[in-house]
């Protein structure tokens, strides 16, 4: 199954990249955009049909390597 992993900086961590994008958007007239946060999207093709097991394993991988939980939070989405 395809598992979606979203990793983004925690809300309390400044995201200078997101802020730069917000400024560009404002310059282009999208002044209603109040905040931009940049993250990563990873699509994992995972063998096995047990959704609960797959989620446990992928979350384990997130904590071990895919996300740095000092600065980032992750979200695992199954189909």
């Amino acid at each position, binding site marked *: 199954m395809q598992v979606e992993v979203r990793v983004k*900086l925690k809300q309390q*961590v400044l995201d200078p*990249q997101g802020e730069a994008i917000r400024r560009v958007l404002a310059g282009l007239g999208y002044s209603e955009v109040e905040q931009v946060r940049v993250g990563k999207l990873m699509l994992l093709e995972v063998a096995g049909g047990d959704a609960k097991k797959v989620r446990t394993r992928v979350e384990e991988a997130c904590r071990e390597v895919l996300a740095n939980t*000092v600065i980032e939070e992750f979200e695992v989405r199954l189909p």
Partner: protein
Amino acid sequence: MSAGRRRPRVAVVIFPGSNCDRDTLVAVEEVGGEAVPVWHQDVNLAGCGAVILPGGFSYGDYLRAGAMAAHSPVMAAVRRHAEEGGPVLGICNGFQMLLEIGLLPGAMLMNRTLRFICRDVHLRVERDGMPLLGHLRRGQVLRLPIAHKEGNWFAPPEVVREVESAGAVALRYCAPDGRLDDGANPNGALNAIAGLVNAAGNVLGLMPHPERRVRSLVGGEDGAALMRALVEAA
């Protein structure tokens, strides 16, 4: 060096994408050590008494700077070496690896300017009597080059407090006269932290590149003290 006396052996770990490994090997020899290249797939440190994780872009900085290298086979040996009290020096990308494997606290964010910064900075020594800081004294100002895009050290407030109260800060970015000044902080690192040392004092990570300053011919010798301290601790 007298004939027959063995020079301290220092491992320099080479990852795919390391680019300061050659400079580091040369710098170790320059200050009297025997530099031993160790491949990231190796499972031991070739009997070396100290290890350096050099700068560069291991694994192209994929995922996060230092994140992939942190899971290389050799890192288990580095961790064991560190836990047994062996000296470890992480320079730039090597510092990022030490954060990723949790030997030092915090994490690196992108520089607040969003730019790769390659220039000299001034650094204030924050600790006395640390073997890995050698003869450097608290308050002394060094001038060393930095070259990174992810050097904006960050940690949650409680970790920052812990780091400060434990005296884990080895180096801070400062003005040429040693004053702490936000304008002298090149990347936005919290509390201008440029280098950290662990509680036992045997693991040092720093963003600047001491290996690039071991000879006046290449712009200064301020890095030699740090390189020599590691070799002497080996």
